[in-house]
């Protein structure tokens, strides 16, 4: 295996990790951008999506199970998100610290629930046969470099979901109301837009997408009760670096952070690459405190 293929392989891994980060961060970016809600239980939506995928495969078998799992993970976590919004988050609007604590509590409850139901050791999701192959690029300088099917699938999934979310926001009635509430919530309310319903829809969409991320994640790593924890910090970093409520910023930041940590790991250990990553983010925030795309955070200064 040559130097080039090693770098290319890590780069590719980085992009697939970035895809999962992107899916995880999308929901956070949406709900924080719109509702100023920091959902500490967002990581557990990944975990829940992973377990739902595992259950679907157990019920429907290896072939169809994963496809069903994607749908179940999205719908299941979206419904759970809706329930969480109605029972808890809606009651804590305008109290960010209380929301932070309450959702952290939800996160602990969900982790323990997963531990009680599935055990502390992870469950494995084996990729369905239609994803287990590799694409190899033999006969070129890239000899020996092959793309695992699952990682390619994750990248495609993230691209499709990002495209779908962007379309919803740009083209649908719901998207128009999301943009209106984002720009001026009281006025949208006074014009007859049911802002609570918009919040609910955005929150459920965000948790559903996180469930999809969990589903994708289950293809490359075992699903454990704490799997969400290892991704949520990166997801928050993506949201902060990307700029609040901006899809483009979230995409760019996810790619930067995913590829950065994957390539840094060629040269050094996982923990030292995290140190480097955080250092870079801290330095970056000194120069662009509002993130890559800062347009969306105007609302913050005005409130």
């Amino acid at each position: 295996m040559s130097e080039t293929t090693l770098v290319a392989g890590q780069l590719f891994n980085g992009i697939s990790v970035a895809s999962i980060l992107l899916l995880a961060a999308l929901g956070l970016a949406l709900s924080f951008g719109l509702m100023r809600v920091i959902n500490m239980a967002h990581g557990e939506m990944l975990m829940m999506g992973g377990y739902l995928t595992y259950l679907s495969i157990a019920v429907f078998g290896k072939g169809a199970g994963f496809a069903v799992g994607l749908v179940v993970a999205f719908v299941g976590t979206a419904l759970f998100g809706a329930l969480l919004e109605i029972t808890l988050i809606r009651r804590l609007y305008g109290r960010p610290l209380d929301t932070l604590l309450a959702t952290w509590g939800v996160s602990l409850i969900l982790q323990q629930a997963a531990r009680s139901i599935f055990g502390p050791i992870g469950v494995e999701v084996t990729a369905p046969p239609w994803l287990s192959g590799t694409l190899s690029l033999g006969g070129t300088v890239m000899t020996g470099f092959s793309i695992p099917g699952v990682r390619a699938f994750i990248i495609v999934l993230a691209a499709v979901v990002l495209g779908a979310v962007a379309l919803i926001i740009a083209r649908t009635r719901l998207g128009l109301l999301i943009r209106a509430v984002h720009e001026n919530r009281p006025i949208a309310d006074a014009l007859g837009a049911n802002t609570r319903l918009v919040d609910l829809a955005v929150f459920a969409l965000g948790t559903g997408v996180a469930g999809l991320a969990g589903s994708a994640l289950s293809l490359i790593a075992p699903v454990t009760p704490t799997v969400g924890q290892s991704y949520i910090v990166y997801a928050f970093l993506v949201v902060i670096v990307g700029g609040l409520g901006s899809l483009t910023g979230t995409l760019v930041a996810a790619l930067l952070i995913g590829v950065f940590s994957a390539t840094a790991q060629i040269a050094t250990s996982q923990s030292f690459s995290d140190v480097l990553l955080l250092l870079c983010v801290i330095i970056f925030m000194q120069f662009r405190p509002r993130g890559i795309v800062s347009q969306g955070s105007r609302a913050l200064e005005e409130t």
Partner: protein
Amino acid sequence: MLVVEGVGAAYGMSQVLSEIALTVAAGEAVALLGRNGVGKTTLLRTIVGLHAANAGRIAFDDDDIIRLPAFRRARLGIGYVPQGRGIFPQLTVEENLSVGASSLDGRKPSMTADAAPLYDLFPTLARLRSRKGGVLSGGEQQQLALARALIGKPRLLLLDEPTEGIQPSIVQEIERVLGLIRSELGVALLLVEQHLDFAWSIAGRYYVMQRGTIVRTGTTATEGPDDVAPLLSV
């Protein structure tokens, strides 16, 4: 149509409105006058539902609306043109109108059918329909704010200083449109206004506020702007 009785409101611990009593009949135009900071804007926001009342009763067509969220009040027929116009800067003119049509309860607005009469009323907006709200001039934004409130087919329109910072030719245009929507559509108006001449040209009755309460009321037919001016001078 609108009955406000004994309404109070506060910002934190300080009471900014107390014992407000005010009525607007169907199709009537009423001016709300007063110096800066006496609570006119807060009163409008309280009627619209953006600020919580802590005392009294607000009835619209005999329904008590004081506990309803703002969007429900909008769907009952209360339109609002806020101070500073409140245009969504990143949305196009057409999209701003489309959000305004949210108060057409329960049905998806059709931008061809619902917006057409407003483009007729404000030809300027028709030309600007795909421009972003934030790049419009103050006068254009004011026309958009009016159109955006009217597309929801309100029966009562609350206007917070519609002539503030707007060039005289547009003020005339707004005066013409306000007259039109009263005579053609029968929309009642509650108008907060600093310019007494403008208020007198539109309203049939007036209320004057001082320090969070109403101190004087009368009709514009029997009294002139000079009669209330002493209450408004700084």
